C-alpha cells in the first residue's frame, strides 16, 4: 500500500528573498532579483545574474558559522539557510533519522575556483576535491544539523532538485522513511557562467521567458528545500500538513545533450506521468510553474509539450526564472517552494518580460500577478541537460 506524502515545511533563498515572506513580497510586487553582478568576483561587470544579495561572510554570520575555522562553500551556506527555515516551519527540533536528499551539480566549485591557481602551484589536487565534489556540499549541510541519518546527493544538472524531491517522495511513499528533507542548492560560479556562455544561451538583457523575442537565460543562485512526511509521522508529531505531493514523473527526451526535441517528448512524458501518478486529468491542473528558462529552444519545446497535453484554455502558467534567474540545480527546489506557496496562500506570480506569444504554441503566460486565486493542484516543471525532464504536482488536502 502506497503512503500519502505530505509537506510540512519549506525554506527558500534566492535573489528575491532570504525566506518565504520576502520571496512572496517580491513576487507580488513583480520585482526581479536579476541585476548586475555584485558579489561574485568577475571581470564581466555587466553580467546580469540573480545573486543572493549577501556575502558569504554575512550569510555565515547569520547562521553562526565561523568561516575561519570551518570551510563551508557558498552553495552549502545557502542550503543550510533554506533547510533551517524548512525544519523550523515543520517544527522539527530533536527528531533524528531524517533522510536528506539534495540536488547539486556545481557543488563546492565556488571554493575550488577561488583557490584554483594555488592548487595548481601547490599541486594539491586532493584538497580541491575535498569541497569540490557535489557530495561534500550535502555533507556540509548535514553536519550543521543533528537530524539527518542518511544522505542522497542527486546530480542531474538543472533538474537535480526536482529529482531529489521525487526520490524523497518515493522514500515516504514506500514507507522507507517518515521524514525527508529534499531540494537543492547552487551558487553562482565563474565555472558554469562561462560554460553557459560557451553554449551561447545566456542573455545580456533581462530574460523574457515564453516571449517571442526571448534571447536566452540569466543564471541565478539559491536554495529551496521542502520537508516531506508520512501520515504516521504527522500523527505522532501532531502536526498539520501544508499540502501533499500528489504526482511526479521523470522521463528522458533521448534527443540531444543540451537541446530539447522539437515535439518536447521528454517534457510531455514527464508531465503525463505526473498526472497519471496523481490520478488527475489535465483539466485538474490550475497552474504550471514553467521550467521557462528564456532560451529559444526550451520555451518552444516546453510550450509545445504543454499544448499537446493540456486542452484547458484557462490554464495559468508563468516562469519565475524571470525573478530568480535560472538557479540550475536548485531551480526545482526553489520553484517547488514558490509553487507550494502559491497553492496554499492563493496567489500567482506574473511572468516578467513577456510581450508577445511564441506563435508555434500560442501560450500566454500570466501578465499580472494574482493577489488572490483559488488553486487546488499546481504543477512544477524542471528540465535538465542530458534530456532529464521532471515534473511534480502539489495538491491541497
Amino acid at each position, binding site marked *: 500500500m502506497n503512503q500519502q506524502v505530505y509537506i510540512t515545511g519549506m525554506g527558500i533563498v534566492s535573489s528575491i528573498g532570504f525566506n518565504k515572506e520576502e520571496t512572496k513580497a517580491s513576487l507580488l510586487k513583480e520585482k526581479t532579483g536579476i541585476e548586475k553582478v555584485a558579489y561574485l568576483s568577475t571581470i564581466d561587470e555587466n553580467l546580469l545574474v540573480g545573486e543572493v544579495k549577501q556575502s558569504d561572510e554575512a550569510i555565515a554570520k547569520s547562521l553562526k558559522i565561523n568561516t575561519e575555522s570551518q570551510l563551508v562553500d557558498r552553495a552549502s551556506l545557502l542550503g543550510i539557510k533554506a533547510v533551517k527555515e524548512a525544519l523550523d516551519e515543520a517544527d522539527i527540533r530533536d527528531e533524528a533519522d531524517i533522510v536528506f536528499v539534495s540536488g547539486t551539480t556545481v557543488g563546492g566549485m565556488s571554493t575550488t575556483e577561488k583557490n584554483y591557481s594555488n592548487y595548481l602551484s601547490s599541486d594539491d589536487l586532493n584538497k580541491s576535491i575535498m569541497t569540490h565534489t557535489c557530495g561534500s556540499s550535502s555533507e556540509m549541510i548535514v553536519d550543521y544539523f543533528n537530524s539527518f541519518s542518511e544522505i542522497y546527493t542527486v546530480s542531474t544538472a538543472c533538474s537535480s532538485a526536482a529529482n531529489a524531491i521525487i526520490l524523497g517522495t518515493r522514500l515516504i511513499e514506500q514507507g522507507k522513511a517518515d521524514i525527508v528533507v529534499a531540494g537543492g542548492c547552487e551558487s553562482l560560479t565563474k565555472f558554469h557562467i562561462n560554460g553557459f556562455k*560557451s*553554449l*551561447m544561451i545566456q542573455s545580456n538583457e533581462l530574460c523574457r521567458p515564453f516571449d517571442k523575442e526571448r534571447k536566452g537565460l540569466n543564471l541565478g543562485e539559491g536554495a529551496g528545500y521542502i520537508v516531506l512526511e508520512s501520515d504516521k509521522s504527522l500523527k505522532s508529531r501532531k502536526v498539520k500538513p501544508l499540502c501533499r505531493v500528489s504526482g511526479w514523473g521523470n522521463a528522458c527526451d533521448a534527443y*540531444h*545533450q*543540451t*537541446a530539447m526535441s522539437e515535439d518536447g517528448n521528454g517534457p510531455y512524458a514527464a508531465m503525463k506521468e505526473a498526472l497519471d501518478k496523481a490520478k488527475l486529468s489535465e483539466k485538474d491542473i490550475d497552474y504550471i510553474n514553467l521550467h521557462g528558462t528564456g532560451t529559444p529552444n526550451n520555451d518552444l519545446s516546453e510550450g509545445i509539450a504543454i499544448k499537446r497535453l493540456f486542452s484547458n484554455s484557462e490554464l495559468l502558467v508563468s516562469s519565475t526564472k524571470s525573478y530568480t534567474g535560472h538557479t540550475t540545480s536548485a531551480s526545482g527546489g526553489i520553484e517547488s517552494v514558490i509553487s507550494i506557496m502559491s497553492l496554499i496562500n492563493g496567489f500567482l506570480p506574473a511572468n516578467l518580460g513577456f510581450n508577445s506569444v511564441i506563435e508555434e504554441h500560442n501560450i500566454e503566460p500570466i501578465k499580472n500577478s494574482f493577489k488572490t486565486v483559488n488553486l487546488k493542484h499546481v504543477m512544477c516543471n524542471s528540465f535538465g541537460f542530458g534530456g532529464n525532464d521532471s515534473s511534480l504536482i502539489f495538491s491541497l488536502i
Partner: protein
Amino acid sequence: MEKLINDLKEQIIEALSLEDYSVEEINADEPLFGEGLGLDSIDALELIVLLEKNYGIKLNDPEKGKEIFKSIRVLAEYINANRAF
C-alpha cells in the same frame, strides 16, 4: 585558398574529434551539417570557438553560423574576407 581549406579540415577533425575521418575524406563542398559528418549544435558552437581562436573572428549570434558553416569552402571564403590574423 586550398591551403586554408586543408588547414581547416585538420582543425575541424581535431576540434570536433572526428577521429574516423582523414583530411582526404572530407569534401570541401559538402554540407558540414545534417548527413555527412553528423555534426550537431554543440559542434556548431565548437566551430565558433575555433573561428575566434585561430582566426580572430568573433561570432556573437549562433544563427550566423548557419550561413557560414554550409561547407568548408564557404567557411574558408568567410575567413579570408574577415580574418583578424
